[in-house]
């Protein structure tokens, strides 16, 4: 965890291979000035764009990913009236249902808490140098967002030409 303050806002971030759920954060996040706490978990879904997913691999540009995540959290601390923010992104191989990201925010009031949480997730998806390799039940795999799916080199076999 990288911990520091943005003004008076406590900021903690991590890029980690260890399993996440955010429950520890729930007990320590925020102060008595904060009436609202919101924790978002992103989890590995069993389907993506109609394909049955068996597992995911997340690869990160580690140092940059953590510094971007910290930058996002600090920006959130300036944009929104919040008391504390903590976010961690998992990397490595994840099974279905495992938590890939936690974003935890505490704030005096719920409006700012929801708005900050939502904003951080969108920024993470736009900016964090992390890549997702989806493994499908049918044996294929694919880098999500790869510019052209024909480029994905791990297709286990070409489409059958004859049925």
């Amino acid at each position, binding site marked *: 965890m990288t911990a520091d303050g943005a003004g008076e806002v406590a900021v903690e971030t991590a890029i980690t291979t260890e399993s996440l759920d955010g429950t520890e954060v729930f007990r320590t996040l925020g102060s008595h000035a904060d009436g609202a706490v919101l924790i978002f978990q992103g989890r590995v879904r069993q389907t993506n764009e109609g394909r049955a997913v068996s597992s995911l691999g997340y*690869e990160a*540009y580690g140092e940059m990913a953590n*510094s971007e995540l910290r930058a996002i959290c600090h920006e959130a601390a300036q944009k929104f009236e919040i008391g504390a923010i903590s976010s961690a992104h998992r990397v490595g191989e994840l099974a279905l249902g495992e938590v890939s990201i936690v974003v935890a925010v505490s704030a005096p009031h719920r409006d700012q808490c929801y708005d900050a949480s939502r904003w951080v997730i969108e920024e993470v*998806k736009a900016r*964090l*140098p992390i890549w997702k390799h989806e493994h499908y039940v049918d044996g294929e795999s694919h*880098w*999500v967002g*790869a510019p052209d799916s024909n*480029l994905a080199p791990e297709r286990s076999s070409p489409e059958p030409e004859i049925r």
Partner: protein
Amino acid sequence: MNTLSVRTLFFGVYAELASSREGVAEMPSGSTVGDLVDTLRGSRGLDWLPERVVVAVNQSYAEIGTQLADGDEVALIPPVAGG
């Protein structure tokens, strides 16, 4: 000096396509990010690089016109998919 040397990093689908996660590129002094990308695309067989490739220099997103310095770490960033 007349040349500069940068460390190049490849991630995700780029690493697979390049069959490499890391390299070193020698460029003329004064080269920009764009010059490096053109060189990689042309002379190193990385012709699959998209027209607008996202690049980070020393772990911060950089513009195509950013000047490189000797010893920079230059990462080619495929479309991100965190969260």
